[in-house]
C-alpha cells in the first residue's frame, strides 16, 4: 500500500473516532434540548388571568383586590363578545317568532286537548329563554301536531315550523360550534350551567395554549376526502365565512385583536408547580405528590442499600480471602447486576408483597426494598473501588500503630474512602430516582395525594417516573397537558443530573486531594 493511502486511512480512522464522539454529543444535545426547553416552559411561561384565577381559587395564591380588579377589567374586555353572541341569538329567535304566533293562533281556535298541550308547552317560552330551548319546544309542538288528526291548517303550521326550524337550526349549529370553540378559549360563557369538571370552569391558563385555541376559534379544521387516491387532506377554512352578513361577523376580528386584553398574558415564574398538588387529573396545579413520592422511594432504597452495600464492600475488600465461596458470592452479585429491571419488579410483587407481605397492597416500603435490591450491586462496586483506592500505606501505618483490623477499617480506611463511596451512592441515588419498571407493581399509583412519612409503610404513592409514563400514554387529554409532562420529565432529569453533577464534583475533589 502506498504511503499516502496509509496516511489517508489513518486520518479517516481518526475522523471516524471524532465523528462517533460528535454523534454521541449530538444525541445528548438533541435529547436534552426539547426536554429542557419545553420543560422549563412548565415553570416559566406567559400565564393568563385564568391561571391566576385557578391559583387564587384552588391554592389561595394572590390577593383578593388584585384578582378582583383584574377580573373586572377582563370581564369588561370580554363583554362585547358576549353582547355580540346574545344579539345574534336574539336575531335568530325573532326568526322563529312568526312560527310561534301561528301556533298561538292555532291553539286559540282549536280548543280541547291539543290546545291545552300546546298552551302548556308555549308557557315555557319567554323572552329570556335561549335559542336551544325555543327550538326544543318547537320540535315538541311539531310532534304533538303530527300525532293528531290532521287538517290542512295543521299541515300549514307543521310545514312552517319545519321550514323555520331548518333555517334556524343550521345557524344555531354553527353558532353552538363557535361557542364551544370560544368556551375552550375563554372558559364558561355567561348563562352556561356549571360543569362537574373543574377543567370547564376556567379558560386557557397559558398563552401558548390560548394562541392554539384562538386558531381553533378563527378557523375550522376538517378532512377533505374528495381525492380517493390520497387518504384525506386536512383543510382549514376561516370560520368567519360561515357568518358572512350576520350581526356576529365582527366577533372574529374583535377576539383576534383583543385577545391580550381578554386574557392578560404575563410572564410568570410558576414555582408552585413544584410545591402544589394537582387538580382535575393534572390539568391544573403542580407535581408535589410525585416529587415527594420519588423522594421517599429514593431515600427508602438508600436506607436499605447503603448499609448493606458498604458492609459487603468492607467484607469483600478487607476480610474475604479468595476462596470458592467468595468467588461464588461475586458471581451472584454480577448476576444481580445483570437482572433486567422489570424482573426486579416482578420479584418485588411475588416476594415482598405476595409472599412476605410487607404491606397489604403496593407500598412505598415494598418499592424501596425492590429498588434497594436493584441498586445494591452498583453501591457495592463503587464502595469496593473507593476502598481499594485508599493507599496501602494508610493501612500499614494504622496497623503499625497497633490498631486492630476492625479499628483500622473504621477509623482510617472508611474515612479515607468516604468521598469515593459517597460518589457511588449519589450516582445510584440518581438511578433509583429514575427507575420505573421495579416500582410499577410494587409502589406506584397514577393518582394520589402526598403521603406523610408514616403512611409510606402501607400506602402506594405517585412517583415522577411512573406518572410521566402514565400522563403521556394513558391520560384522556394527552395533548392538553404536554407542558405538565415536559415539566415532570424536566424535573426528574434535573434531579438526576444534579445528583450526577454532585458526584462529578466530589470525584474532582478526590482526585485533586490525591494529586496534591
Amino acid at each position, binding site marked *: 500500500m*502506498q504511503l499516502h*493511502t*496509509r496516511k*489517508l486511512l*489513518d486520518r479517516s*480512522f*481518526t*475522523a*471516524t*473516532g*471524532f465523528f*462517533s*464522539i460528535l*454523534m*454521541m454529543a449530538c444525541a*445528548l444535545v438533541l*435529547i436534552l434540548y426539547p*426536554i429542557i426547553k419545553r420543560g422549563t416552559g412548565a415553570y416559566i411561561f406567559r400565564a393568563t388571568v385564568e391561571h391566576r384565577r385557578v391559583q387564587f381559587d384552588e391554592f389561595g395564591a394572590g390577593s383578593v383586590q388584585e384578582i378582583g380588579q383584574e377580573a373586572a377589567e377582563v370581564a369588561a374586555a370580554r363583554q362585547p363578545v358576549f353582547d355580540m353572541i346574545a344579539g345574534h341569538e336574539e336575531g335568530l329567535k325573532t326568526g322563529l317568532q312568526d312560527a310561534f304566533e301561528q301556533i298561538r293562533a292555532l291553539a286559540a281556535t282549536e280548543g280541547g286537548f291539543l290546545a291545552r298541550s300546546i298552551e302548556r308547552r308555549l308557557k315555557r317560552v319567554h323572552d329570556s329563554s335561549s335559542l336551544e330551548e325555543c327550538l326544543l319546544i318547537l320540535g315538541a309542538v311539531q310532534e304533538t301536531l303530527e300525532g293528531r288528526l290532521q287538517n290542512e291548517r295543521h299541515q300549514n303550521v307543521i310545514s312552517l315550523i319545519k321550514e323555520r326550524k331548518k333555517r334556524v337550526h343550521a345557524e344555531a349549529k354553527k353558532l353552538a360550534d363557535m361557542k364551544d370553540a370560544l368556551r375552550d378559549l375563554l372558559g364558561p360563557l355567561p348563562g352556561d350551567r356549571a360543569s362537574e369538571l373543574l377543567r370547564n370552569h376556567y379558560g386557557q391558563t397559558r398563552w401558548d395554549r390560548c394562541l392554539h385555541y384562538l386558531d381553533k376559534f378563527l378557523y375550522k379544521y376538517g378532512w377533505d376526502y374528495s381525492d380517493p387516491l390520497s387518504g384525506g387532506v386536512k383543510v382549514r377554512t376561516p370560520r368567519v365565512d360561515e357568518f358572512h352578513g350576520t350581526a356576529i361577523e365582527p366577533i372574529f376580528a374583535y377576539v383576534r385583536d383583543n385577545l391580550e386584553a381578554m386574557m392578560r398574558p404575563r410572564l410568570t415564574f410558576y414555582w408552585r408547580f413544584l410545591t402544589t398538588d394537582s387538580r382535575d387529573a393534572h390539568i391544573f396545579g403542580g407535581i408535589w405528590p410525585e416529587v415527594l413520592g420519588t423522594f421517599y422511594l429514593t431515600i427508602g432504597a438508600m436506607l436499605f442499600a447503603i448499609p*448493606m*452495600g458498604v*458492609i*459487603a464492600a*468492607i467484607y*469483600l475488600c478487607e*476480610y*474475604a480471602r479468595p476462596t470458592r465461596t467468595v468467588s*461464588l458470592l461475586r458471581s*451472584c*452479585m*454480577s*448476576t*444481580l447486576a*445483570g437482572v*433486567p*429491571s*422489570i*424482573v426486579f*419488579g*416482578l*420479584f418485588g410483587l*411475588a416476594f415482598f408483597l405476595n*409472599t412476605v407481605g410487607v404491606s397489604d397492597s403496593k407500598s412505598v416500603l415494598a418499592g424501596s426494598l425492590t429498588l434497594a*435490591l436493584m441498586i445494591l*450491586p452498583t453501591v457495592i462496586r463503587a464502595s469496593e473501588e473507593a476502598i481499594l483506592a485508599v493507599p496501602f500505606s494508610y493501612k500499614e501505618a494504622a496497623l503499625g500503630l497497633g490498631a486492630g*483490623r476492625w479499628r483500622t477499617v473504621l477509623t482510617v480506611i472508611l474515612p479515607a474512602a468516604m468521598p469515593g463511596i459517597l460518589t457511588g451512592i449519589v450516582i445510584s441515588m440518581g438511578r433509583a430516582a*429514575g*427507575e*420505573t*419498571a421495579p416500582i*410499577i407493581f410494587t409502589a406506584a399509583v397514577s393518582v394520589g395525594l402526598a403521603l406523610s412519612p408514616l403512611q409510606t409503610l402501607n400506602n402506594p404513592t405517585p412517583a415522577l*417516573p411512573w406518572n410521566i*409514563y402514565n400522563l*403521556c*400514554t394513558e391520560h384522556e387529554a394527552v395533548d392538553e397537558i404536554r407542558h405538565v409532562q415536559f415539566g415532570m*420529565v424536566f424535573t*426528574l432529569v434535573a434531579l*438526576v*443530573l444534579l445528583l*450526577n453533577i454532585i458526584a*462529578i464534583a466530589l470525584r474532582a475533589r478526590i482526585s485533586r486531594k490525591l494529586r496534591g
Partner: protein
Amino acid sequence: MNAVTVTSSKKQSLMMSRRADFMQRLGRNIGQTFLFSVTSLSAIAVLFIFFFITRDAIPFFMPEAGNFNWSNVRQFFSETAWYPSADPGQFGALSLFYGSAIVTLGAIMVAVPLGISAAVCLSDVLPFSLRQIVKPVIEILAAIPSVAYGFFALVVFAPLLQDSGGSVLAFGFWLIALPVLGITSFIAGEAFAARFPEKLRKTASLLSISVLGMLSLALLWFVGQRLAGLEISSGTNAFNVSIILGIMALPTVVSVSEDALQAVGRELREGSYALGATRAETIMRTIMPAAISGILAAVILGVMRAIGETMVVWMASGNAAQIPAPFYNFMEPVRTLTATIAGDMGEADHVTGSSRYHVLFALALCLLAFSFAMNLVSEAVVRRSRKKLGKS
C-alpha cells in the same frame, strides 16, 4: 515505689487474660460472621429472584404438579397469537421473543460501531483535556432515566418519524454513507492504480477515483431518493426504539471497551509504533486483537442493557404483538417481552393465580435465563482476557 507499681501493672495489661483473649476472638468471629452474612444476603437475593420467578412461572407450564402441559409449552415457543384475555387465553410468545430480538439487534447495530470507535478515540486519540470533557457526556447519557428516553422517543422522535420519516432516514443515510463511500472509493482507486506502471499511476489513480466517486455519488443519490420517498405509517416502531436503545446502550459499550483498550498497556503500542505502523494500523492490528475479549464483554453488556430495558420499548415500540412482514422490516410496530410484562401485569395482577398471571412470570424467567447466560459468557470472556493479558 510509685514507678514500680506502674510498670508492674503495665506488665499485667500487656498479657491478656485467657478470658479477655477469648472474648476478643469471639467478638472478632462474630463480627466477621456478621459481615459475611450481610454480604451473602445480597448474593442470596439473586437466588431468591430465581426461585420466586421460577415458582410463579411453573404453574403455566405445569398446571398440575409433575405433569407438563406440552401443548402450552409448544404454543408458548412456536406460535405468534398473543391473546391473554381471550377465553381460553392464547399465549403464543414467539412474536414477543422476535420483538425483543429485533429491537436488540437494532440497538446493537447503532451502539456497537459508534461505541467502539468512540472508545478507541477516547483511549488512543483524544488528548487528556478533551477526554475530561467527553467523559461527563457519557456519564450524563448513562444517567438520564429510561423513562425520559422513552418520553423523548414517544413525544419528540415518533411524531418526527411519522411526519417526515423519509427525509430523516435519507439524512441519516447521507451522513453515514457519504464519508464511508468516499474513503472506500479513494482507497479502491489507489489500489487499482497501483497495478499500472509508475508513469501512468498518477493519472490512473485520478481517473479511477473520480469514476468510483461518481458511481458512489450516483448510488448515494439513488438510495437517498428512495429513502426520502418512504412513508412511515406509525412513528412508534422498531426503528425508533432501536435508535433510542442504541443511545442508551452506548455509555456501557464505550466505558467497558475503553477499559479493555486501556488494559492492553503501553508496551504493545510502543512496539507497534516503533515498527513504523500508523495509529490506525496499531489499533486495528495490535490493540484490537489483544482487547477483543474485553470488547466482546462490552457488546454483551450492551445487549443486556437493551434487552432488559422496559420503559422505552413499552412507550415507543407500538406494542403490536406481531412479526412484521417482511421479517426485517424495522418500520413496523413490535412488542417485546419486557413491555408485555409491564403492560399486562396491570390487568393480570388482580387475577393472581390465573394463567395470565403465570405466563408473565414465564416470560420473566426467559429474560432472566437469557441475562444469566449472557452474564456467564461475559464473565468467562473477561477471565480469559485477564489470563491472556497477564501472560503476555
